């Protein structure tokens, strides 16, 4: 839904820009006139602009949050990786893949191998455990058991401190996101999960992906302690066509009894939270925006009313009705644009890269993410605010352009 609004805003901005060009060439009330007017009535202008600033800040905040969650989840998919899960599940943590099913998958001919000749296939197990968060309260941290191939399938994964875990010793490495959100997951800490003490030996980052919210350990250790089968199998393919063929093969062949999809799709489907927050942001922005439009309209009506004689004088001097209308719409657009630009800037300063976390509604585990105020978001926010001004100024400008000259000149 959001992109519709984005497009509407884009079109409106384009129309406004065109209008400016046409205006400069054809009409001749200088823009300076409007800017000066805003300055003369500065208290009213300021109050209106501040209202628009705040609406923009709310919009930027909601979208930055949605974009942050989106980057973390959607960005976790790799176009060359495929994931095999139990039929009917949407999350690794709910899926079960037996040893037999895994071995069946290994039997698929012509799977991709790495330089050493190892199959690029990674059986993994995702489980969860409650850990106390830094801001109090508990949340579920995802614990991923992986084999030696897991890192070869994640090109963005990088150990930044300590060392990789060794099998059979109950060692774990912690993602930077999980380390940021939870207590007691620093290198050297010894958290207890399922009756065993584990040791954190390293810390990794992964380009802001969802993996950064997880703990990773040896698949053997985690399988035995959590008493589970594999939850999913990741397979890397040479190119996207091969990946699609492999998905079709696994899905259609009854022997595997597994669901297979590109990891891109798998993670996109988990982005419920991000989508919810973004659509909530759109609703908020629209309703708050309408509120702000009334404010802008109010200001512009007052501006028109107090300049009745001035407008009539301009008409007498030969400016057309169109020129008057355009001039007042531009004045309102200025109000909106200044408010939008300031609001985007304030939103950027307040929220960009702010680190927080929420629950991943599909896996029920904690997802650490950072607010993202992108230049595109700031541009849209400013465009929307300008639109608010234009809409708010439309009718007052119309009233200004319809005045009867004689009566306006005589009026007080």
């Amino acid at each position, binding site marked *: 839904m959001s992109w519709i609004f984005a497009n509407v805003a884009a079109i409106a901005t384009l129309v406004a820009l065109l209008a400016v060009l046409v205006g400069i060439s054809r009409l001749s009330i200088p823009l300076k006139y409007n800017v000066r007017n805003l300055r003369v009535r500065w*208290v*009213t202008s300021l*109050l*209106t602009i*501040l*209202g628009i600033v*705040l*609406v923009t*800040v*709310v919009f930027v*905040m909601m979208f930055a949050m949605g974009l942050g969650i989106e980057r973390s989840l959607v960005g976790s998919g790799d176009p060359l990786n495929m994931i095999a899960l*139990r039929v*009917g*599940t*949407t999350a690794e*943590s*709910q899926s*079960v893949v037996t040893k037999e099913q895994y071995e069946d998958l290994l039997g698929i001919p012509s799977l991709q191998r790495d330089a050493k000749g190892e199959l690029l296939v990674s059986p993994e197990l995702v*489980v*969860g*455990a*409650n850990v106390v*968060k830094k*801001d*109090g*309260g*508990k*949340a*579920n941290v995802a614990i991923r058991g992986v084999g030696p191939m897991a890192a070869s399938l994640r090109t963005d994964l990088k150990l930044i401190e300590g060392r990789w875990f060794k099998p059979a010793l109950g060692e774990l490495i912690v993602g930077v996101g999980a380390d940021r959100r939870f207590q007691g997951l620093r290198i050297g800490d010894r958290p207890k*999960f*399922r*009756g065993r003490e584990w040791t954190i030996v390293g810390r990794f980052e992964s380009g802001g992906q969802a993996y950064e919210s997880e703990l990773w350990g040896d698949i053997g250790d985690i399988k035995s302690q959590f008493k589970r089968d594999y939850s999913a199998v990741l397979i890397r393919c040479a190119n996207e066509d091969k990946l699609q063929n492999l998905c079709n093969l696994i899905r259609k062949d009854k022997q595997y009894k597994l669901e297979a999809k590109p990891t891109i799709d798998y993670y996109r489907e988990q982005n419920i939270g991000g989508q*919810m927050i973004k659509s909530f942001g759109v*609703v*908020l922005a629209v*309703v*708050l925006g*309408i*509120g*702000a439009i*009334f*404010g802008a*309209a*109010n*200001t512009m*009506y*007052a501006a028109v009313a107090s300049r009745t004689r001035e407008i009539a004088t301009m008409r007498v001097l030969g400016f057309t009705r169109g020129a008057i209308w355009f001039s007042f719409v531009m004045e309102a657009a200025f109000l909106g644009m200044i408010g939008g630009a300031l609001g985007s800037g304030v939103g950027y300063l307040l929220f960009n890269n702010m680190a*927080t*976390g*929420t*629950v991943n509604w599909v896996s*029920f*585990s*904690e997802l650490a993410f950072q607010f993202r105020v992108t230049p595109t978001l700031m541009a849209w926010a400013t465009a929307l605010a300008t639109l608010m001004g234009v809409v708010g100024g439309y009718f007052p400008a119309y009233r200004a352009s319809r005045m009867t000259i004689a009566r306006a000149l005589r009026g007080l």
Partner: protein
Amino acid sequence: MKFLPLIWRNALRNRLRTILTLAGIAFLLFVLIFVMTGLSEIQAWEGVAATHRRVVVQHAEGLTAELGVELETFLKGDVISRHAEHVCKFNWFGGYYQDPKNWPPEFAVDPPAMRPLFDELKFSDDAYRKFSETKTAALVGIALMKKYDWKVGQRITLIGTFYPCNPELDIVGVFTTKDPRQEEQMFFRWDYLDELLQNRKIVSTYWMKARSDEDIPRLKELIDAHTKNSAYPTETITEKEFAAQFMSMMGNIKAIVGGIGALVLVIMIMMTANTMAMAARERVTEIAVMRTLGFRAGQILAIMVSESLLVSLLGAAIALGVSLLVFNGLRLSPSPIYFPVFLVEPKTMVVALGAAVTCGLVSSMVPAVRAARRKITDGLRQVV
């Protein structure tokens, strides 16, 4: 009070301006009511949960970990039964009906303990007898029955997402209760779920009713000490704490809602202040005339403040009226999956009214005080 007609006339003097302000306030307050209702819906369970003395035993490492069926013997034994009764296995099923969008809260429970444990649910003895006798039986809340147009006796299939099975259930009865949210739930039998899962004896939580409030801390102590070194260490919490952990999972929603609420209030105040400043500017001469006629400065102040208060409260009335009609009357929800109902709470209405009053008072303060303080001679001399 006798100035009410004057205040009303003043408000209507510039109709367009008043209507614009009113509409702005109504829209902004609607946003406030909307976000606060979202928050109160998320927290609703916590509120009702506190009243039932129910205690939940879950795995110490959280809901994703399972408990053993062995624990039941201990929970039903002498030590615990002195402090609690009606021990019930309780698994959230999390399946959907026909379409992943139809995702009602479904719980697998033990029939004997279910009725006394959830004694706020009202259903017939006949329905309960069938629930106890039929393995595939389901008891369904009345709102859920209406939503999917189900009939008693109908057989429905739930598609499991969390558990790898699709139970086929026979609806044997309908329950009603005070809380409309609970009427969106359904219950079926744990032993049937277990059968579908090849008797793997997965218990996600045990629920029970404490005999008195004093027994609750004792229960926590006894149960958690008993399981401390077992394969399933537990955490025993009240239903309220159980509900609260979902809030905690979502992160800092309260701060976000609070922040949006505060911003909305500020926007509202600025908008109304702008209107009132314009009104005051127009009336300088007139106020001076009124002062000459004997109106006191305090009265002028009161009249102006009342005017913005009147406009704000009218805006609040519109916003409240519309949201009560849409959410409580027509029962519309912005997201039927996550909010089966979206009810505006009395608390929310009070906050909305409070915001309107604050807006009315604060926004008119500066212009009203300035108007009241202006010297009569200055006012009379000024040309508007």
